[in-house]
């Protein structure tokens, strides 16, 4: 198993490196940066929904909280290292509280969706109504629907004047995406990840085996929120402004669509779905003939009807079928390993 993991870690590093070198030749790094950020946001929901079985309609809440936590603390501190950490921590702590309330209250699927959705809308409303000058956190004016502009953007840790922007900021985001992807891989191979998948499959059975489902789901929920928060912090740096729209319903819905289109239950699917659909939205934004939301909706409907499992599972299925000699080889290998196990047993 550890050998496998090493190979996969190398593969992730190589693919990330290659993409960082190749993609800027095709698409501008400014756009690529936000695609990487969205990829990370997609991955956060892909983890808790696809593997943890927690359908969260409010992943945008953690994204927005991360962005606001960064912006507010960056204005107060004037250096970006601690704000970046807060962008991860604040949503994670919020998710622990919200998750504990939901999971210890024995709320299941539909109610979970409703509550996460409502929490997102409440945050949207609250932030929207903070336009007056009396709404300050330290030196930061919350600014209501206008959002918060003009905060310190990412700098080299410890050097507030050495800004990281442009191409180098893209490298930072892409490398972080690769790193988070690796962390998710490690997590899913660990006992915690395997048990989480077991809980997705059958909560009653897992609790009859002696696992505390509530605690484990809360932790999983918080990990997803931490990743979404990191993406939010990075997004704030890219946009150089945070607005209540980060908490909007359409943002939440988009994340879910990314996951469905890319493929639930895979790590790669949500990342590709996010980057692909966000790029499509970017291209569509340059013309006025068809409406953006219409196309996204059409894509969702077509996928649900024709490719309900999403792009990545469909492609990997195709790969298995078309590279014909693989299945027999697999069976042979399996038999041999079984034989080995018997010898050892």
């Amino acid at each position, binding site marked *: 198993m550890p050998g496998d993991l090493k190979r996969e870690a190398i593969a992730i590093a190589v693919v990330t490196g290659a993409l960082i070198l190749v993609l800027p030749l095709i698409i501008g790094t400014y756009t690529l940066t936000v695609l990487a950020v969205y990829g990370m946001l997609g991955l956060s929901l892909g983890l808790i929904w696809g593997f943890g079985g927690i359908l969260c309609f409010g992943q945008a809440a953690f994204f927005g909280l991360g962005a606001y936590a960064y912006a507010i603390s960056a204005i107060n501190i004037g250096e970006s290292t601690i704000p970046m950490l807060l962008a991860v921590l604040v949503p994670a702590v919020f998710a622990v509280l919200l998750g504990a309330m939901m999971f210890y209250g024995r709320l299941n699927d539909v109610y979970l969706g409703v509550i996460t959705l409502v929490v997102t809308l409440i945050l949207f409303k609250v932030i929207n109504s903070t336009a007056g000058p009396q709404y300050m956190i330290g030196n930061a004016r919350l600014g209501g629907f206008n959002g918060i502009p003009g905060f310190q953007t990412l700098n080299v840790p410890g050097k507030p004047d050495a800004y990281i922007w442009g191409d180098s900021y893209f490298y930072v985001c892409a490398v972080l995406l690769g790193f988070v992807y690796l962390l998710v891989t490690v997590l899913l191979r660990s*006992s915690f990840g395997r048990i989480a*998948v077991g809980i997705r499959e059958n909560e009653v*059975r897992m609790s009859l085996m*002696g696992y505390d489902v509530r605690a484990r789901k809360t932790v999983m929920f918080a990990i997803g929120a931490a990743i979404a928060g990191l993406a939010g912090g990075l997004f704030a740096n890219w946009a150089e402004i945070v607005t209540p729209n980060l908490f909007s319903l359409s943002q939440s819905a988009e994340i879910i669509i990314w996951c469905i289109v890319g493929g639930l239950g895979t790590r790669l699917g949500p990342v590709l779905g996010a980057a692909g659909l966000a790029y499509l939205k970017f291209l569509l934004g340059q013309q006025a003939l068809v409406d953006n939301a219409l196309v996204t909706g059409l894509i969702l409907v077509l996928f649900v009807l024709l490719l309900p499992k999403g792009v990545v599972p469909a492609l990997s299925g195709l790969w298995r079928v078309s590279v014909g000699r693989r299945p027999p080889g697999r069976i042979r290998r399996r038999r041999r390993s079984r034989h080995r196990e*018997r010898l050892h047993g």
Partner: protein
Amino acid sequence: MAEVALETQGLTMRFGGVVAANRVDFKLRARELRCLIGPNGAGKSTFFKCITGLQSPTEGEVYMRGVETTGWMPHQIASLGVGMKTQTPNVMDSLSVHENIWLAARRFHDSREADHKTQEIIDLLALGAIARDDLGRLAHGERQRVELGLVAVGDPWLILLDEPAAGLGAEEVERMTAIIHVLNRQAALVIVEHDMQFIRSIAQTVTVFHQGKVLIEDHVDRVMSDPVVRNVYLGKKS
């Protein structure tokens, strides 16, 4: 006196106006094998659910090895070393047989030891040929056996089986009987069953439930010949 594995005192479970279990006093010694029978709706499954924490009883107490576990969560009770097979197969369908059993083993052992225990159980239950298959694709009898494996791999000292022989063929029932005897060397068992032949082949003492109450508790032969039991249960069946 042998140690008491499980005891309930005045266990009562009401759903609105319906009394599913009514003042049940039940006692099970360590490594005893007990069968519960009774017509549908007699309260057997409710009794099980109250013991394992899937439902918490309206009144009464549950003790396990002398520890009061009334109102505990299922995972807390399972962590004591209590295993349960529910009436309908309750497994992780999209995971492999090996992964299913491994997850159960991992609760009580570290990762490597869990691998080892999983292999032991797979050999014991003769699941080797299907160990890598997804559980959802297997036949009913195989799924029943895997679920028994999930329960057994945790080395429980109390095992509750809700209809382990339901829907099994004659050969599978025989295999199930053998497995139950192996489990009984380590653990006390309570088995809910309808299959009388199966009960005769495994049980000494049988408890009969009727309308939420314990009707009679005696040796299997005396229970089977009891006219009241025949009337409420066996008579209706034929």
